[in-house]
């Protein structure tokens, strides 16, 4: 295990931020920590990095107890914070040199690593640019370059794609996958379920300071009743028809709002055909039809009764 957290408790006065929080990240994993804002993800990361004192529990990183003076462990960790942490007065290259210099004392080796980090994040055209002249996406890439330049064994990324355009987000996610392929273990936090689904090999869903579900995305989705969500664009649907749709086999939940009918079904191979057949029988004309497999939001919704982005 590269990270072992057991029974971590962190309180801010009367408010409990981490409530017997447990986490195990295996070597070579991209571990996703998913949860809504305020669920305790960043607090957990700060405790793991020994930036915050905690009330109870234990944290081991790369086989060593994590403390503020665990410098040998810190040397093997890369950190990309939620907020961009760079020097405004330094250029892109100088910023990466600074952070790499904190880990790698040898100048020659450091210079090589800095160039590799610049190439990795695609910042070659901006080496002499100061951060305030970079776009949000480029700034995030610089933040990542500063965190990974020293080629760590473990990278902790805390919501690295907040306020990033889709293209930059895609580049960042691809970069993380590439790092993982090169042997780096990753702990990735986000409240964007799509990102977590896209890159993580194992996922923990957090709410109110606790891990409420853990597993691969397939394992998580199989935990819930919802197997498929069918959406149909249909106008003026009378309430009695909703009752007949609810009576169909495998239908768990039906919602009709703003000319959109949403049918949540449990497992079953022919749910869509059965719904369409029923609508045709009743001579109801409908527009576009969508069928979606369950998402992590459905998992979260079913476990907590609220949306991930509530």
């Amino acid at each position: 295990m590269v990270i072992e957290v057991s029974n971590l408790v962190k309180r801010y006065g009367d408010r409990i931020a981490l409530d017997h929080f447990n986490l195990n990240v295996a070597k070579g994993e991209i571990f996703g920590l998913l949860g809504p804002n305020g669920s305790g993800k960043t607090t957990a990361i700060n405790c793991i990095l020994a930036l915050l004192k905690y009330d109870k529990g234990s944290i081991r990183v790369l086989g060593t107890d994590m403390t503020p003076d665990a410098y040998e462990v810190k040397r093997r960790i890369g950190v990309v914070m939620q907020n961009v942490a760079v020097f405004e007065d330094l250029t892109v290259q100088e910023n990466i040199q600074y952070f790499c210099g904190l880990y790698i004392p040898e100048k020659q080796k450091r210079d090589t690593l800095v160039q590799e980090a610049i190439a990795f994040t695609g910042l070659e055209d901006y080496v002499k640019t100061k951060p305030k002249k970079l776009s949000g996406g480029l700034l995030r890439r610089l933040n990542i370059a500063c965190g990974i330049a020293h080629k760590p064994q473990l990278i902790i990324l805390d919501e690295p794609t907040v306020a990033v355009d889709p293209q930059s987000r895609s580049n960042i996610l691809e970069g993380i996958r590439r790092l993982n392929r090169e042997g780096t273990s990753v702990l990735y936090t986000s409240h964007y379920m799509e990102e977590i689904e896209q890159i993580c090999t194992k996922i923990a869903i957090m709410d109110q300071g606790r891990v409420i579900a853990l597993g691969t995305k397939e394992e998580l989705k199989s935990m819930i009743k919802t197997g498929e969500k069918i959406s149909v664009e249909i106008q003026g649907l009378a309430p009695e028809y909703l009752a007949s749709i609810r009576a169909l086999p495998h239908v768990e939940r039906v919602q009709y709002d703003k000319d959109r009918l949403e049918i949540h079904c449990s497992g079953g191979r022919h749910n869509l055909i059965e719904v369409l057949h029923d609508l045709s029988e009743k001579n109801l004309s409908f527009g576009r039809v969508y069928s979606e497999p369950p998402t992590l939001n459905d998992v979260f919704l079913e476990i907590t009764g609220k949306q991930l982005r509530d």
Partner: protein
Amino acid sequence: MSVFNTSMKILRSKLPILLIYVVVIVMVSILMMAAMGSQENVSDTFEQKGCAITVINRDLGGKLSEGLEEFLFRTNQKVSIDDDKEKLQDALYYENTAYILLIPEGFSEAFLAGEEVFLSKTTLPDSIESYYVDMQIDQYLNAVRLYMQAGIKNTEEILEFVSADLDSSANAEIIVSENPNSDDSQLHIFYFNYLSYSMLALMILGISTILISFHQKDLYRRNLCAPIKLIRMNGELILGISVFAGACYFILIGCGLALHWEKLWDFKLLSLLCLNFLVFSIVCVGIGFLTGVFVRSYNVQSAVANVVTLSMSFLCGVFVPQSIMSASVLKFSQFLPAYWYVKANHLIGSLSDISLEQLKAILGCLGIELLFAAALFAAALAISKKKRFMDCL
């Protein structure tokens, strides 16, 4: 040495702003030299000087009035104008003459007879020279009256005695002191006083720039994730600040010496002034440190730099001499370190010879400056520690 190198790079990015304060001191010293150059021919001999006067003598044939006229023209320039009211007024208006004395008809006879007589005068408004002419007239007539009271009756004899008396002069030697408040020491004091303004501005801007950068909450936390001990990081920061302060100290003194070597080079005076400036530089580092701990934005930083440097310079006698400042302002200024720095500079400037008593007064000022520095560092450290504690909750 990543932290040290980065602190130097941060300062380099602020170099244009920092250089302004070096240019200010250079320009001020050049202007001061130019102003002093125009006063360079200070005489070490005394020469009596007079003013342009006109005497309208209506007492024709009067021996006393002729004697008075002759006496006045010995030291004053004679301006001849006709006895015409309009012409006399024009002469005064165009400042062709500064003093018009009108001796009335029968003046000599009446004066020598002991009667009350009056001389009338017209002068330029607020003319200082006119007082000297008044004094000369009083001096002459009093001397005549003295001989008359002594019982001498012969007018010619009296006028001869008076003329001889007023002609006599005593020799006096003018000694120009080598040191106290000479022009050279004035330049020293002025230059070193002004250095405090530049040094204070440089330290506030430079040190707070470094500290604001490194103490940004996110950056500070990011640094804590790195495998570098906090003590080492702080050590490198202190080294960076010390190198910057040292460089500013030598550059500011060096600029003065390079530009005005001949005027400023006086080993005894210079070494004491440099010592005082070194102590004040430590105070400036303390103020810069405190500003860096308090301020978290570059906009606020430049506002603080301007307010602190200008107010301290005005209140403590950097721009305006302490000697012309009111007692109440000076009383308040004593709570500011620049007051003691300026005071020490003046004490050093007025040293004719180094004595224990004089050194005690100077060292007292330096001691107070050091106490200010200690208080500033203690306050900055306490606030810094409290802020970090709050961040780690």
